[in-house]
């Protein structure tokens, strides 16, 4: 016997076809990220699979040029950067920012 309409379980087949994307596309603005190195890696490789609507360019800059400019302009800052007393967030190590040949193994 056919159940009356109101007793049937509700099933929306249209909605069931749509796979839920846990991170649906959204309109967003992401702020600038200043110059940095990545932590602990040797070669950084990046592949852009799609571009933003606006902005998002990458810039690179030579650490050696920064070093040379600082050596001329502000040797005191260079010394500060080469001193191993920079306590990094979460790490129990205090590396210097400019690395030297000393202490390499």
């Amino acid at each position, binding site marked *: 016997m056919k159940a009356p309409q109101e007793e049937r379980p509700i099933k929306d087949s249209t909605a069931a076809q749509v796979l839920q994307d846990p991170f649906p596309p959204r309109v967003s603005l992401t702020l600038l990220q200043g110059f940095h190195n990545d932590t602990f890696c040797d070669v950084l490789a*990046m592949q852009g699979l799609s571009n933003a609507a606006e*902005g998002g360019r990458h810039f690179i800059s030579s650490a050696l040029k920064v070093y040379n400019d600082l050596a001329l302009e502000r040797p005191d800052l260079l010394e500060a950067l080469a001193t191993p007393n920079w306590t990094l967030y979460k790490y129990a*190590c205090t590396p210097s920012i400019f*690395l030297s040949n000393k202490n390499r193994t």
Partner: protein
Amino acid sequence: MNFVPQSLVGLPNSTRATELPPLSPLQYEALEAVQRISEKHQLSLSFKPGDLTFINNWAILHAREAFRDDSVNQRYLVRMWLKNDTLAWKLPNPLQEGNRKIFHDKRSVENWNVAYTPRLRFDIRECFTP
């Protein structure tokens, strides 16, 4: 060069731990100088979807300008941390442990997210910690 200012000064949503000693004014000035001089010599990379960039992380700084995603144009970048054991520069002691964790720790699994979907989102701290 090991320039990771996010770890030193924090980010808006990931502030510097209060138990760490504060940076000196000279140290702040030095961080700003690195940013300023890097900008002076910067090269802009214009990559099209699919292009690959490989940089020596110990010799080259990188930065990214602000961007806006809309519902159609969504920035999607795959980042890979790679190492050539033969050619890699020898690192000073404080950096060896972190480097070893990334490349020689058998417990860490390789995570590849080259497929376009599903999108992976990483916790902001995970972005710069091994």
